């Protein structure tokens, strides 16, 4: 595991944790238990993973790998929920629903870099859980 890669992914994990915290707990106008709970889990995992990778702890790759799988799954679930909601609204409201649908697609796009692209790339870098100790190509 290259030091440069470790530091880069550690830093990106911490940035993503901050953005999720700001986006959910400052940006959203209303509170919902499921969203807040998932966000709290994501923030916690990304923070632990980021700190571990930056400090070069032995457990860090395992935690980062698990974090990536969980965040990727939640990210894909978020994108799916928003896309299906947009389809539902466009079906009911017709033309005007497309405005709302565009907003939901934009929200989904905002989450893609941090909740889909980052964990996917990190998984490629770390390798699959079954191959622990054999990090993928940096």
């Amino acid at each position, binding site marked *: 595991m290259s030091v440069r890669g470790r530091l880069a992914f550690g830093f990106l994990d911490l940035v993503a944790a901050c953005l999720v915290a700001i986006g959910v707990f400052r940006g959203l106008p209303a509170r919902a238990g499921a969203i807040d709970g998932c966000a709290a889990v994501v923030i916690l995992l990304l923070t632990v993973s980021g700190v571990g990778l930056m400090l070069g702890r032995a457990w860090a790759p395992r935690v980062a790998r698990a974090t990536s799988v969980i965040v990727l799954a939640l990210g894909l679930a978020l*994108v799916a929920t928003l896309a*299906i909601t947009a*389809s539902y609204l466009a079906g*009911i409201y017709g033309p*005007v629903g497309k405005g709302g649908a565009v907003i939901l697609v934009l929200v989904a796009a905002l989450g893609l870099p941090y909740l889909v692209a980052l964990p996917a790339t990190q998984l490629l870098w770390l390798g*699959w859980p079954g191959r622990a100790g054999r990090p993928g190509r940096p």
Partner: protein
Amino acid sequence: MTPRALAIVLTVYTAFLAVACVLVHASARGRPPASEVTITSVWKDGVLVARSATPDPLPLATAGTVVRETIVREGSILSAPDIAFAISLVPGRDGVRATLDGRTAYVTPDDLLARQSYDHGASIADLGLTVGVRVDDVIGLLAERLGASVPELRARAELTRIRTERIVDAEPPPHEGVTADALTPAMVKEAAIAAARYLARGQNVDGHFRYFVDAPKNKDLGGYDWPRHAGATYFLTQAAHASGEPELGIAALRAAWLLRDKAMVTCGDERCVGDDDQVEIGSASLALIAFVELVRTGLDPSFSQNVAELARFLRSQQRPDGELRHLYDRSARHAVDVQYLYFSGEAALALSRAHLVTHDAADLTASSRALSYLVGPAWSFFGSRYYFGEEHWTCQVMDDLWERAPDPSALDFCVRWHAYGRRMQYGPGETPFDAAGAFGVGPIVTPRLTPVASRCEAGVATRHALALAHGSEAELAALDRQLRSSLALLVRQQLRPGAAHLFADPQAVAGAMPGSEVDWQLRIDYAQHAGSAMLRWLETAPP
């Protein structure tokens, strides 16, 4: 994980998601019913007295208005969670059919309009917004009509969204369906005077208005404030002058006397308007605008003394940079330097109007400085050329000052503000609502009519100043189209006699402006903004 494995996972995910979206869209969009179903209702004094749906026999002849709602489309609906249910009905268009143990019941759009259920559903407190239908109303009505309990209905009933088209056995209201192209000055004047008559009809002998009214029940909802009272006074004065109707003049005077005799208090060495220890300048500003109108139209020139008093108070609230301090602490005898939406623009317009009566150069200077601040430092931030707010007074100040103290940068600001707004203006057929001429960006909330009216006030002012400044013909034409479209919407949506089967007393609320196509709670400023915009358009627009 290998890139190939990840690519396979994401490709499969994308394919499943695309299929899911197509299926959900088709299911939500629905389809025409297999056989025509018409729900026939009889309404009397805003109350449903009889109903049947085909193939059942028509309701027995009963006194009242017969309404037929034909189902033109039906689709699936998400009944949980409540927020999903709430936004699953298009306001004013969609209802619900419930089937339980072989029995069927309907909640139609008329049922929900009569209860004012649309747009009063889920509340988003931080945005001060309620969206969607009140789910308890829908579920409660269906349970009652099926003779089931609410939990039973929620657990076992099959719910379907229905889209209906309504036919009413009554004369249509005047100007129903009027378009921007068909709008005439006579229609607009008639609508403005009808709005003024509504306000005058609801006035007490002491000058107070019916402030907030639930139109279907004709019931007062309480509340009161002086800025809106003063705004209504201003509009009644305009309308009295435009129509020559003595009743409107008497109503305006009663309202103005109430302001002068009960609401004017001392603020240090000056006179202001308010009840509390801390008063805001919006009340004094709008009272001043109303008093100037009374003097200018000759309805009561004795108010010129009050004009001078309130102008002095507003000037005393101005900071050296032109901004105004919006509160005054009467106990501590000093201004409080805080700012709220609208008040600076209202004060600037009030000072400009005051100058026409006082001829005091200090009023004109104060208004000009406030305007410079509003279109300068007050709206200067990264991206300010690409984003504008709701403030609609600034452009009225700009126009009011144009022939005495023209400010080209303010005119430029207003032209850009309207160009931005036009990007959000709905055209015919763009929404499922009657919203051509309204402004909005999303599907969930029915377009509100008061922002349409206040943008009209600002648009009329901008058009007038731009014409005086020999501005671009293309921009003038765009403003004309924008205004005609918005005014036609206001004329169409005004509550008028005719198909008024959902109202307990249609005559009591005739001429009022609702909050939206489906929100029939009536506050006095709704009529004021719409009526003032209409009268100013008649004064300034080309024939």
